[in-house]
């Protein structure tokens, strides 16, 4: 089980996950016609579970949301806002802030 020492670490993990998810959706063309989308467990696993590092990231991001209540984070480039709607399912909302 991965460990998470502090709030800063929780924010960093959520930032990594949020950025990877948002940009993966962007590459798939999800934001061509819409500015907002909801991502469920299946899609999250598909995006983050491809590699060992990605796999760890999904559980770390879940832990960040549960333990430190990191529920809303902007991607590292500030282009998207990723919100945790349901931490148990998990369910995320990705909103484009600027093109």
């Amino acid at each position, binding site marked *: 089980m991965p460990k998470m020492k*502090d*709030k*800063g670490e*929780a*924010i*960093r993990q*959520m*930032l*990594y996950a949020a*950025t*990877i998810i948002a*940009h*993966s959706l962007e590459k798939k063309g999800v934001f061509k016609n819409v500015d907002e989308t909801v991502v469920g467990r299946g899609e999250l696993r598909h*995006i*983050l579970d*491809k*590699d060992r*590092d*990605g796999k760890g*990231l999904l559980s770390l991001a879940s832990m*960040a949301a549960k333990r*430190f*209540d*990191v*529920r*809303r*984070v*902007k991607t*590292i*480039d*500030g282009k998207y*806002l990723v919100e945790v709607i349901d931490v148990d399912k998990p369910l995320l909302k990705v909103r484009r802030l600027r093109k």
Partner: protein
Amino acid sequence: MSEIVLIEKEKLIIADYNPRIARNQEKIRALAENIKHAGMAVPLVVRPTDDGKFEIIDGGERFLAGQIVGMDKYPCIIKNIPLSEAKKLALAVNVEREELTDEEIAMCIRDLIEEGVFKSKKEAAIFLGWSESYLNEKLKELDEIKDKTIAKQLVTEYPGLNIKVAETLASLGIKPSKEDIEIIKMIPKAEQKTILDKLQETGDIKKAIAKYQKEREEEIAKPVKIRAPSGHSYEISKSDNKLIIFKLERGTIIEQLTLPLSDLKQVIESMRKFLDF
């Protein structure tokens, strides 16, 4: 002194620009207990929005704690200030409490500079009472997080890519092509690290791969020495798609065999006959 008014919970929203990303649930629960017994002693600071709602500039955690105890109306101080001022105020009140992480502060400042709320890093540093070098330090940490994010993006996109290689690519600002990544991935994951030095030296992914491949070829071309129980020794080397074997006795070449590598079966058969063990 600003007037305190009661505002319905439906009209209140936590501002998007609130720098706080992580919230302490235990603290919110403790706060809820406190509100339950003593009521909300400190009002929220809010700003009216265009759609008739009020965004909370200060007091997000009190608002969440109030929801736990089922508050319908909240005491608020309404600030009729422009959005840019509200963003500055949200940062100032949170920084003062010293509970924000470096990541939260750095991201908030970066956003405010990019949005033009602060005209420069210097203005942001003066506003926060920090030195400019301290502010730069914080923003630099954000750059490091950015590099790590790009690296994680790469390994997620290209499974099999070593994370250290991805981090180096990100820190050097190199955007590798799909072809470059496919070449690196052909190298065993553990050995991919050997590319790192070459990347640091050249700063170019194609040059680094070419250098690595050249060194590998040179290494493969180095002669291999083996000793047979008969007392003879052999020196095997590869040159121009040919395998050259020297048979030596006390350091002197006594026989030579050259085999074209086109037919591997023939190579093995000839070697078996030539080597006396």
